[in-house]
């Protein structure tokens, strides 16, 4: 019963996301094949998780779990249902003093189960004018612990205009989600060097401003 309801809700969410954004996936240097991957993306809007989830082909989507903040997704029964039953999120607590679990252990457990992940390495929504906030260490830690898994950079374009922080009604604008060539942490690559490389891989997928295209 719950699973039927969850699938219907999932279909409704996808339909709504497409109605508002007409979102299109661009696979640039990588193919949409059902392999285990960790998708890491820029994060400027509450809808980011749902948008990536929407553009993934169904066969990939069912095996992909967004890593998300427990304090957000457990706030109400509806969010709990969408977060756990529809999106099948890996919920982690962002407050070190309040949590009773190790977030990295939960993430690695999901990876060892064979799931692909969606993560936002900035750790919070970017409300600044900078295109990207500095990445937290989590991405490096995951790649260092599971070096066999491909990390796929993702750029979400325009969703922050559709649904900026603090707004409830989304405005309809076209969005794209660009997936780039995968990276991995090299065996003896320093943390900072890897995180810089990962940030550059995401930024490289952002469309250039109009002036440059002339």
């Amino acid at each position, binding site marked *: 019963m719950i699973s039927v309801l969850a699938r219907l809700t999932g279909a409704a969410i996808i339909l709504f996301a497409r109605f508002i954004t007409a979102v299109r996936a661009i696979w640039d240097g990588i193919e949409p094949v059902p392999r285990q991957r960790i998708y890491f993306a820029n994060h400027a809007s509450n809808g980011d998780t749902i948008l990536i989830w929407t553009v993934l082909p169904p066969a990939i989507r069912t095996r992909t779990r967004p890593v998300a903040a427990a304090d957000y997704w457990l706030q109400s029964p509806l969010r709990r249902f969408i977060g756990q039953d529809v999106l099948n999120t890996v919920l982690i607590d962002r407050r070190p003093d309040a949590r009773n679990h190790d977030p990295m252990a939960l993430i690695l457990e999901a990876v060892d189960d064979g799931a692909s992940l969606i993560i936002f390495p900035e750790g919070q929504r970017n409300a600044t004018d900078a295109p990207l906030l500095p990445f937290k260490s989590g991405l490096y830690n995951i790649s260092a612990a599971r070096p066999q898994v491909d990390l796929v950079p993702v750029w979400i374009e325009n969703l922050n205009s559709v649904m900026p922080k603090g*707004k409830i*009604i989304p405005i309809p604008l076209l969005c794209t989600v660009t997936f780039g060539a995968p990276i991995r942490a090299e065996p003896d690559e320093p943390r900072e060097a890897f995180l810089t490389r990962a940030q550059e891989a995401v930024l490289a997928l952002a469309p250039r401003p*109009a002036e440059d295209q*002339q």
Partner: protein
Amino acid sequence: MTGPNGDFLFLLLGIGGILVLATTIGAILKHRIAPDGSNPTIENLNARIMAWWGMTALLAIAFLAGRTGVIILFAFCSFAALREFMTLTTKSAADHWPIAVAFFVVLPVQYYLIWIDWYGLYSIFIPVYVFLLLPIITVLQGDTRNVFIRISETQWALMICVFCASHVPALLTLQIDGYEGRNILLIAFLIVVVQLSDVLQYTWGKLIGKHKVAPALSPSKTWEGLVGGVASATMAGTALWWITPFTVWQAAAMSLAITLCGFFGGLVMSAIKRDRGVKDWGHLIAGHGGFIDRLDSVVFSAPIFFHLVRYYWSSV
């Protein structure tokens, strides 16, 4: 085969036949010249043919659903076009509410007014009321940076994507003596002639085009394409006089008027695309443009066509 249903079916069969022919030619060209899809002209042609199949199918379905179906269809077209247009306009965070109002209040109200056939209001609602009210909502948000550009571009988007586009279904509200129940054929006439003009301009341009009309605006529009396309589309429109309330010569004049409007509309829209540094308005079909790319000429000619018919033929 008399009455509106017979004529429409006949027209539909004719279009279907032409599309089958076009699809076959497209497939043969692709097979002969570039089976791997490496020839952009052939790919573009085949994408256009696919888009026409879609348009024809949608129009046929909308016709079966009647006046309400046509109005809903064009309301969704307006929505998709406005979504593309607003993606490229100048915006700030303060415009969230004005833009939400444009999509979720202005657009439905305009089509509702057409549905209840309130000509006096739907013909001034966006040009007068929205023109004055939306800037008020915008400036009350308190952000003055680029405010003149922001309100102008939002208004322009609404005029093109909602106001002008809504004049296609508004053709159904005209009352023409001796033409009762056949207004859907006016829509078919408008769309068929303007779309034919688009493709014939493209074809003539590809075949013999040499002298560019406006190289600063569009590299693909040539004088040969323009004259050949407009002339042959006008002849096709003239040959369709039997589905309209027009005489043969009137059908020719109307065809000429709407094909020219469509041509210049295309020029205006490609100038805007150039300014924004994009090749296409959207990504309706991956790599082959959006709604506005396919409908720009229809949108520009619809209000002119509507008012010409209303002034000279309508009894109200």
